């Protein structure tokens, strides 16, 4: 008895199933809708390809197609499952978005009317009320940037003034010591110290370099490369004699003891720069 009841219910449901096919002729903008088991006369149809250039208000897709026999007048028929999406509110005929499989337009289709509805009214352009939030920062982003920039500039100016003052102080303290001295000014004390026998190793080297510089300046060899200038000095009768004597005194292992430093350096005691002579 029970088994017979189950079989009966199953048969009833199976018979009722075709009756539950979707037939959504009205949908909201952007929402998908389906029309299933739609029978249309003529050869098999397809959805019109979506164009990139034209902004179609409807997007139609053919989900499935079945042959549906022949009409009384001999015309073949097909059954379709369609899915469509409306992009603009209004009433449209889906038949306009169907074409032959070959891509050619088809004529004589019955109207497949659908309605696309908008959630908002056509003249409803008022935005929603903003949600409650925290208070904006004081002055906003631009004011914040301006404030930081001002602070940076003030700090920079203060730092610049502070550094300049420090340099000024140290410059004052250095005084005359920082002022460049002429070759003659530097040579005289070294000659005096040498005559007193008070020159150390580095001071002897400095004395020799100063004397070389003095003669380069005196013979106009300041712009000549050092090696060439030295060769020219050695070839000069007066400078050459001095250089050889100086080398004998400062560099020769035998000459350090018996060099007549007094006679060698006497001419340079009161030496003046070329412009002062």
């Amino acid at each position: 008895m029970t088994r017979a009841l189950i079989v009966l219910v199953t048969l009833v449901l199976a018979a009722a199933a075709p009756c539950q096919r979707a037939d959504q002729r009205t949908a909201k903008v952007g929402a998908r809708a389906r029309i299933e088991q739609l029978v249309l006369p003529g050869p098999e149809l397809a959805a019109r390809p979506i164009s990139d250039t034209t902004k179609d208000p409807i997007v139609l897709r053919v989900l499935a197609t079945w042959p549906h026999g022949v009409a009384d007048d001999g015309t073949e028929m097909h059954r379709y499952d369609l899915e469509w999406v409306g992009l603009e509110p209004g009433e449209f005929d889906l038949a306009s978005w169907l074409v032959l499989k070959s891509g050619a337009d088809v004529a004589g289709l019955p109207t497949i009317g659908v309605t696309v509805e908008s959630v908002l009214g056509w003249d409803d352009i008022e935005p929603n009320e903003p949600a409650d939030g925290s208070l904006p920062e004081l002055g906003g982003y631009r004011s914040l940037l301006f404030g930081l920039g001002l602070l940076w500039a003030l700090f920079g100016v203060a730092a610049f003034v502070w550094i300049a003052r420090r340099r000024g102080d140290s410059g004052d303290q250095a005084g005359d010591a920082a002022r460049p001295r002429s070759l003659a000014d530097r040579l005289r004390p070294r000659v005096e110290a040498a005559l007193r026998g008070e020159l150390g190793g580095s001071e002897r080297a400095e004395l020799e370099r100063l004397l070389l510089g003095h003669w380069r300046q005196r013979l106009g060899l300041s712009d000549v490369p050092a090696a060439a200038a030295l060769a020219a000095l050695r070839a000069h009768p007066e400078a050459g004699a001095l250089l050889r004597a100086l080398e004998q005194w400062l560099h020769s292992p035998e000459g350090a003891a018996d060099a007549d430093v007094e006679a060698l350096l006497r001419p340079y005691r009161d030496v003046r720069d070329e412009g002062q002579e």
Partner: protein
Amino acid sequence: MTSIESPAESPQFAETEAFLQAIRDRVGQVVVGQDVVVERVLIALLTGGHLLLQGVPGLAKTLLVAAVSKTVHLEFARIQFTIDLLPSDILGSEILDQRSHEFRTRKGPIFTNLLLADEINRAAPKVQSALLEAMQERKVTIGNETFRLPAPFLVIATQNPVEQAGTFELPEAQLDRFMLLHRLRYLEPRQEKEVLRRNAQLGIRRDESGGAVARTEFDVLEQEPVGGPEDLARAMEQVQQVHVSDTFLEHVVEIVDRTRRHPQLELGASPRAGISLLKAARARALIRGRNYVVPEDLFDLAEDVILHRIRPSYEALAEGRSGLQILEEILAEVSAS
């Protein structure tokens, strides 16, 4: 006065001076107008430093080195550096003896007294570094065995400054291994005329089979040496006896220090530059017949010793300043301060 003292007994330089002068005269018979280069080669020989010659082809670099080696009776080898050269082509390798089934060491051309590394910048960096490592350590490891290079051992390398395509420029660290980098210049017209005159008189040489071949400068090199390795060793010892005053050391330190402090130099002279300057100055003094160094030695050698060890900053290069200009500026300051 603190200084590098010479021995109590003053060295007798006359014999050595005559030996060095004989080398210069003999080389001068075949190489014209390269007195400075000959002096630099002698300085390198006497100090055991290595020499890099930079100059365009055709300035008698090979002839010069061959002449020096024959004059002092030294073994001479020449390697033409190319891109496909391998380290084993220079140093040597182990080869399997098919008869004894044992590895046998085949020493490379580096095992000589005087090695001419022609166009060193054409070889790949691994070959350059293999040579430069051997130059510094004066020994070579082949397989598991280490061999000492003969003494004296001197590398004279050349590089061409104009054809830079396909070359591998030696970095500063590698250049620092060369005691001297001398830039060869073209001859003066008078010297060039002498070269042509001598070349025109070379004539033809006939061999045993009766064939004739044009004689070259290499054919006129006299085979009899003016001295041997013993004379050279004595000269090298006497270089060590050349007196260096404390004042001279001050000059060296001043120049080296100024290259490190100069605002337009990105890289100053290394301590090795100061050592090389001192060594080279002592050798130059001996060649010039002095038993003490003078500032002239320093200023004459500064370009060859220091210029390849310094690097101008980008700002200086952008201003069109060269390393030579900056060095000249430093030397001018030192000789007038």
